[in-house]
């Protein structure tokens, strides 16, 4: 969720039951503003909270002008001091996927694994966040547009999805570089608008049915929840510009999803 509209976003995303306490909210508002100034980000997103056994990690992301460029990730334990997480290498990603279990809440905690080296919890947090972000960060169609010069911009004239569009999975895209676009047939591509439809939509996510769409607040808010990564909530108020996503959870993938559907 955008740090500029943090309060409203938290209010709208509260349908999942997890939110932030008032003191955290207050400290987030101030500290994210400072982060934006210090790191010179164009936009700062509050990504979410990873629940650990001892303490929770609060994660924020900083975006530059080009919305699809790789985002910088920051973490904090108390919502006031933010540290940049180091970028992950391939080996670290592989290692952390092996080490299972909940997060402790201590960034210096070392996980032990018989075959591999010890994995630092700080890195593990980061990989987890990257994985989750790639998998389930979403954006409504029309919120970003791509210029022919390359960079992707926020669409200032985005007025929100209509009610009928908001209930369809195809109106939402993954907020990452497209992976499956090139696999589409020519017929499908002919219907796409290259300035708006340049990301993967949620329709073709595997396993099918891993997204739950609901209307809340008496039909005035559409909420998407990921069933594969429980804890990710995306909200959008149709016909308005408000949208955002937040992750509050333990950082574990729901491997039982096919049985649960």
């Amino acid at each position, binding site marked *: 969720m955008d740090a500029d509209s943090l309060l409203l976003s938290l*209010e709208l995303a*509260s*349908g*999942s*039951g*997890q*939110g*932030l*306490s*008032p*003191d*955290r909210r207050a400290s987030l508002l101030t500290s994210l503003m400072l982060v934006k100034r210090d790191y010179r980000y164009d936009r700062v997103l509050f990504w979410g909270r990873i*629940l650990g*056994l*001892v303490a929770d990690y609060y994660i924020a992301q900083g975006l530059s002008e080009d919305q699809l460029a790789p985002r910088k990730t920051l973490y904090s334990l*108390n919502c006031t001091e933010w540290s940049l997480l180091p970028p992950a290498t391939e080996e670290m990603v592989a290692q952390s996927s092996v080490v299972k*279990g*909940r997060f402790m809440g201590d960034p210096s905690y070392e996980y032990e694994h018989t075959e591999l080296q010890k994995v630092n919890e700080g890195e593990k947090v980061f990989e987890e966040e990257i994985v989750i972000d790639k998998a389930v960060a979403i954006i409504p169609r029309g919120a970003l*547009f791509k210029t022919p010069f390359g960079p992707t911009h926020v*669409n*200032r*004239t985005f007025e929100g999805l*209509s*009610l*009928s569009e908001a209930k369809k999975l195809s109106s939402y895209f993954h907020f990452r570089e497209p992976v499956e676009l090139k696999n589409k047939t020519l017929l499908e591509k002919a219907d796409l608008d290259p*300035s708006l439809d340049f990301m993967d939509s949620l329709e073709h996510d595997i396993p099918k*049915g891993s997204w*739950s*769409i*609901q*209307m*809340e*607040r*008496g*039909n*005035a808010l559409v909420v998407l*929840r990921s*069933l594969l990564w*429980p*804890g990710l909530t995306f909200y959008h108020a149709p016909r308005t510009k408000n949208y955002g996503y937040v992750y509050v*959870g*333990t950082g574990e993938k*729901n491997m*039982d999803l096919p*049985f*649960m*559907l």
Partner: protein
Amino acid sequence: MGDLPPYPERPAQQPPGRRTSQASQRRHSRDQAQALAADPEERQQIPPDAQRNAPGWSQRGSLSQQENLLMPQVFQAEEARLGGMEYPSVNTGFPSEFQPQPYSDESRMQVAELTTSLMLQRLQQGQSSLFQQLDPTFQEPPVNPLGQFNLYQTDQFSEGAQHGPYIRDDPALQFLPSELGFPHYSAQVPEPEPLELAVQNAKAYLLQTSINCDLSLYEHLVNLLTKILNQRPEDPLSVLESLNRTTQWEWFHPKLDTLRDDPEMQPTYKMAEKQKALFTRSGGGTEGEQEMEEEVGETPVPNIMETAFYFEQAGVGLSSDESFRIFLAMKQLVEQQPIHTCRFWGKILGIKRSYLVAEVEFREGEEEAEEEEVEEMTEGGEVMEAHGEEEGEEDEEKAVDIVPKSVWKPPPVIPKEESRSGANKYLYFVCNEPGLPWTRLPHVTPAQIVNARKIKKFFTGYLDTPVVSYPPFPGNEANYLRAQIARISAATQVSPLGFYQFSEEEGDEEEEGGAGRDSYEENPDFEGIPVLELVDSMANWVHHTQHILPQGRCTWVNPLQKTEEEEDLGEEEEKADEGPEEVEQEVGPPLLTPLSEDAEIMHLAPWTTRLSCSLCPQYSVAVVRSNLWPGAYAYASGNLRTSTSAGVTSTAPRASTRPCQPPFNKSTPVAQRSWR
């Protein structure tokens, strides 16, 4: 020709000073117009330096440029005569700002210039009388757009320094046909020059309507520019594309219908009305203040806002307006049902809809009706089974080769607990959203609990959905929901040590055979445990609901006690029963066991404690979170009564649930062989 003398003044008059120049140029134009009739052939001299850009028109230094200006006028006359359709021509835009973009060829450049110059000329002319002088006899419908243009011009020049509003080419608007004339068109139709031809072609191309609709590019550009000039957005170039899109959309979706509601918003409005009904006070608002005083007594409805506040401190819970709506919905529930106590249990998320769960206790003697219905259904089931056995015996007699009769008997059904005891201590009502009616959930049976432990399914949000799983769940989603609620309540309802105590009438501890006490009451002497201590140690928290045994009940029942029906079946089966007779009595931890005794989940502590705010420990609240049931929270602060709220998600406990293998019962012949 009398055109020469006025011309040298032009270079001194730049476009910004246009207005003043225009006045003087009106004079010129008039002269030009008069000269036009006299010089029909001069238009054939196309100035070679018309190729320069439009804004540089003042740089043109030849006489023929005037003719250049005149010529487009003639072209227009031609086209008008030819019956050009929508002919908005150049009603909008200042020529200095208008960049005719699509033209790339040189001839097109010329055309661009010509059209630009045409517009310039138009601006400069600005008096209807001008056209009248030219040819009062020429009148045709396509004159209207010119009249439109004239209106525009008079508006502009009469208002002085104001720009616009510019009149859009809206087909809904009607314009008065002005008395315009066109330059006299001589009887001879001269050969159109290549440049003129190019201009004609370009204009005709622009005016061509699109395949899908009636809009031509010309019109669209006109509309777009009008819009930009009216709205004056910052940095129009960057929003050009979106404005383009919006303009097109608006053309085809005019907001004309103000009487009918938007069909898309119907469900939203309906929900809003239902929720509005929540807010109206029941019993009519006309009753006086005396009623108010009477009502402010004990109501079963809890103070949800207060608990919501504390949960918010812990970072859990729904937003405050949602909590208020839930409060109103519960008030509605209390009015509809005979409720003694009631509590907001929590929210369970489903795929299509979510459930709000309220835990209630009925007043004495109120719930007998539902019980009888359920019993009838189970008896019906037993009758069916007896019928099946009879058929089997008949077949046996006929066939020589006897199919071995199965000796498998289904395990005895464990009777469910009485209401108001054990797992069925409370009744649960659910609704999907505040404002919708509440539905009562049936009591839970031990079989359902046992099966619910083995499966893990999402809730869809509709209570009558069948639960398709292996091992098959006996019931539909309502039963599964009830079973999960029972499990969650049993596992996660906790309170600080000492808040509840056992009632003093004891003596039945040994009579129950170790089943433990099942009632507690609030301790009036409870002084509260300091928050820091609550956070430090799990021994300061105790469960205040009964643990559910593996059997599926809170109090153990021996399943092998023979009922009357079973004794009729004969001796063989009695012998078979003797084998697995030794069923151990199941014992669970007694009530009010501290949380420190809870088993670990795969090397994880089952509970996590947190202070709600580390910056101000004196005012913060101790929060306990379950790691087994994600979403179950409890808070305690000083003297305050604790409350557990499962803001529960649909996930089952963290313990891994492998898909169940088919149950192996030792009594089946197959199993017996394999066990040897």
